[in-house]
Structure formats: structure tokens, C-alpha cells
């Protein structure tokens, strides 16, 4: 019998069947729809296959698609870089002073765990050009207020919010990495008269490099996927100033036009961008599991 020989199947199959039905099948279905001219008002029976036409449209006609790729990459790289630097610095700060460390960490990560759609609206109020508290604060400090959600600044605001929301995540990860650094080499380095910076570069960083790269890859994926905050803050606007790829999917498929076929093609591109990062992540994680 199958289960006698392969007993593990008894445990794995229920979950695998569910995942096949609700993750793998829909993803497969997405690829199929991306090859059709399916429209939201159509019946599935009426759709016809158009081959790679939707992809051709995205790549050669739809200028907004290229712009949204550009916006997505800018948003992702700028915010991840700043978060990594800032988050690590704050982690070192947390590490230097261990009093109330549990309380401090649990307070600090609240931005990351708070419901994003609601947080986005709160930021909309804070960033409001006329009566937002940020501009009032800036004027009080003697700086000029900005029109934060205008075409010029909306992407900057979005990046700032992402930094506010996710720097705690980097801090938490790096901080926990720092706790696993062995003490002996550090003490030996002290004996040899190494500076704080030398110890950081030669002992601490190599030790936490795996956790740093896993943090980085997970954050990259998170940014490429992001939808909630942008949707609730700007809906991709003004114009298409903050239209990330997932917002472009939304605009093609649900908002302006109802071309689910083209929207699916756009979603497939988003998937194709994420897949190499995920496989890289898999390598890092298996390395970290083996060395643990």
C-alpha cells in the first residue's frame, strides 16, 4: 500500500492537497488568463485566447507599465537600503543599552504590526498639506511645509512611511542576530586592543551575515508585493506618480479598464520578478538551517 511504504504522505497530503487547490491551481489559472482577452463583464465561456498579445501590449504600448516598473524598483531599493542602514544602527543602539529591552522592543515594533490600511489613512491626515500635523511641525521648526501627497512628493512620502513602518523589522532581526555573537573572540579582540569599529567589521558582521541577507531578501519581497498602504494613501496617484506594479494590476483589472487578461499578464510579470528573490531566499534559509 502507498501509505505503508510512504507513511509521511499520510501527514503531508491533506495540507498539500489544500495548497494545490488554493495556491497552485489559481496561479496556474492566472497564467492562462494572461493569455486571453478576458474582460470583467464577460462570461468565462466567451473568452478567447490571444497568445502573447497582452504581454506585447504591456511591453510595447503601455508606457505606464514601464513607469510602474521603474517606480516599483525605486521604491523598493531606496526604502530597503535606508531601512537596512537605519535599522542596523538602531539595533546597535538597542544592543548597547539593555535596560527595559523587552519593553523597548515591543513598543518599537508597533508600526510594523499595526493594521496597514488604517495606518495609511492616519498618515493621510498627518501628511495633509493644509492641516496635517507634519507641516505644522515643520513650520514650527522653521522649515517650509510641503505638499506631501502631490505628484512630486507622493513617492517620497510613500518611501518615508515604508521606512517608518519597516525599520523596526530590520532592527529586531539584526538585534537578535547580535545576541548570538559569541563573546570569546570579542574578548580576545579587546585584549589585542581592537577598536569598536574593528570588532564590528571583523567579528560581528561576518557572524550575522546570514540573518542580514535573509532580512534583506524578505524585505525586498515585501516591498515588491506592497499594496495596502499605497492603495489607501494615494491609490497610485496623483496621476500615476505612485503606481507600483500591484497598483498597475489594480488599475488595469478593476479600476479604469476591466481587462482582467492584461491585468493578469502584469501580475505574472510581478511574479516573475519575485521568483528569483524567493529562490535565493530558499538557498540562504537552507544554509542557515544546516549551520544551526
Amino acid at each position, binding site marked *: 500500500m502507498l501509505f505503508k511504504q510512504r507513511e509521511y504522505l499520510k501527514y503531508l497530503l491533506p495540507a498539500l492537497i489544500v495548497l494545490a487547490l488554493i495556491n497552485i491551481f489559481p496561479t496556474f489559472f492566472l497564467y492562462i488568463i494572461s493569455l486571453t482577452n478576458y474582460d470583467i463583464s464577460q462570461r468565462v465561456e466567451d473568452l478567447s485566447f490571444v497568445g502573447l498579445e497582452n504581454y506585447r501590449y504591456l511591453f510595447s504600448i503601455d508606457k505606464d507599465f514601464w513607469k510602474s516598473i521603474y517606480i516599483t524598483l525605486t521604491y523598493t531599493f531606496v526604502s530597503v537600503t535606508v531601512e537596512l542602514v537605519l535599522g542596523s544602527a538602531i539595533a546597535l543602539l538597542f544592543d548597547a543599552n539593555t535596560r527595559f529591552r523587552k519593553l523597548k522592543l515591543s513598543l518599537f515594533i508597533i508600526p510594523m504590526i499595526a493594521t496597514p490600511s488604517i495606518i495609511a489613512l*492616519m498618515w493621510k491626515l498627518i501628511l495633509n498639506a493644509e492641516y496635517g500635523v507634519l507641516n505644522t511641525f515643520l513650520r514650527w521648526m522653521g522649515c517650509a511645509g510641503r505638499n506631501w501627497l502631490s505628484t512630486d512628493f507622493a513617492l517620497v512620502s510613500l518611501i518615508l512611511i515604508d521606512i517608518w513602518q519597516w525599520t523596526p523589522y530590520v532592527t529586531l532581526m539584526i538585534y537578535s542576530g547580535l545576541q548570538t555573537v559569541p563573546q570569546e573572540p570579542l574578548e580576545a579582540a579587546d585584549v589585542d586592543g581592537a577598536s569598536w569599529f574593528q570588532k564590528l567589521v571583523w567579528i560581528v558582521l561576518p557572524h550575522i551575515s546570514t540573518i542580514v541577507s535573509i532580512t534583506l531578501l524578505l524585505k525586498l519581497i515585501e516591498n515588491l508585493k506592497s499594496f495596502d498602504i499605497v492603495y489607501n494613501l494615494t491609490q497610485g496617484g496623483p496621476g500615476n506618480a505612485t503606481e507600483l506594479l500591484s497598483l498597475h494590476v489594480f488599475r488595469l483589472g478593476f479600476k479604469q479598464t476591466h481587462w482582467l487578461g492584461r491585468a493578469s499578464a502584469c501580475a505574472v510579470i510581478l511574479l516573475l520578478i519575485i521568483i528569483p528573490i524567493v529562490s535565493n531566499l530558499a538557498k540562504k534559509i537552507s544554509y542557515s538551517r544546516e549551520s544551526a
Partner: protein
Amino acid sequence: MKRKTSPIIPVVTWIIILAALAPVLWMLLISFKQRVDIISFSVLFKPTLENYKTVFQKYDFLRFILNSTIVVVATTAISVFLGTLAAYGLARFQFKKKESLAFGILSLRMLPPMAVVIPFFIMARYTHLLDTQLLLIIVYLGFNIPFTIWMMRGFIEDVSLSIEESAWLDGCTRLEGFCKVVFPSIFPGLAATSIFCFIQSWNEFALAFFLTSFNSRTVPTIVNSFISVLGVLWGEMAAVGVVSILPIVIFTMFVQKYLVKGLTMGAIKG
């Protein structure tokens, strides 16, 4: 990495924490303000519970909370059950291609919501599941099951196999052995994993927004109710925000020990 601490460090740390919390604290403040006070910046104002009253009475916030709770509890329960079972299979058996299978499962956790929402939307329309709680329960299993499998796998691997084997020698079946030996040791991990599923599902917006319209709206999608022709009703909005974030903050305190593990799907012990 310790070094001599100067008294400036704790001060700077607390300033950073305060800056990070400022927007949330601002929301808390606004939720107690009257409509006329909201656009003024004074911290001194006559606090009112009017906003909280309005969201529960006029906007039926309780129904959103109820929907969210039903969806979240059901999806968490199913995921934890199926996930732990599968995790046991991955942790305790050796077979060909096991690691590729595990990473295949993990990668499903990374699917962008905007990629799965279109097929789900079409399929749900044809099965008449749009705007039902059942649909959200099913859809959320998609990211919760991979998560629980990876989390629980780590927790089960931490239980030594030899204790379990000695239970088998005493005549226990695998199931009895699991219940008597493995389950008590993984229980804290199981609780933490459930809380993580709870938080993820509670905060989920994109899928809930596109796949429900009226009957099964969850808490994160309520934001649209407060955008009216008169502008956004900030006070009501803030009150909803406070009520929605409060349980999450409390739950997170419980799982603090497991946060790093939860954020990396168990890849890093933390």
C-alpha cells in the same frame, strides 16, 4: 557587542522609540477629539467618546469585528491543524526531494496578493462565493498553511526523536506518542504560531477588499466607509484604528519571544 555605555544612549533610544510611536499616539489622541478639535494641534482639549460611539452605532463596526473574528479564527484553526500535521511529516520522515518540497511550500507564502486576487475573483464569481466569509477563510489558508508548516516543523524538530521512540517502545502508536510526548513540548510554539496567523489574517487588506463587498467586510476594509463627500471622517477613523490595533499589540506581547522566528518562518531561531 558591549562597550562602555554613555548616558546619552538610553536617551537617544527612547527618542527614537517615541518618534516611531508618534503617528500611533497621534491617532490615539485624535480618536478622543471632537470634530472641531481635530485640525488643531493642541494636546489640551475636552476628550470625548463620541467617535467610538458613532463607529459602533452608525457604522456597525461590531459587524466588521465579528466578520474578522470568524474568518481569522476559522482560518487559523484549520491552518494550524493541517500545518502541524504536515510539519510532523517533514520533521520526522526522510524522503527524496524533501527539501525541495519544503521550499516549494515556503515560496507559496510569498505570492503577491495582487497576483492571486484575479483568479480567486473569477473562480469565486462562478461558485457564488464572492462576499462570503467562507471564501476569505479559504483564501487565507493559502498564506497561513505554508507559514504554519514551516514554523511547526522547527518546533517539532526541536523535540528529541529518542524520547518519542521510547514512547513507541512502551507500546504507544505514533498518534499516542505525538499526543503524549511531542504535543506538550510544542504547545508554546503552537500557541505562538496561532497568534502569528491571527495577526496576519486580521491585518490582511487586499484580498478582503476585492473579494467582499458588503456582507463579509473585515476590519481593515472599513477604511473606505469613512471617506465621504465631506472629506475623511478622521475622528471615527482613528477610533476604528485604535480598536483594531489594540488586540494586535496585546497579542504581540505574548509572542515576543518568538518574533524573529515568526518573521522568518522559523528559518532563524532568534
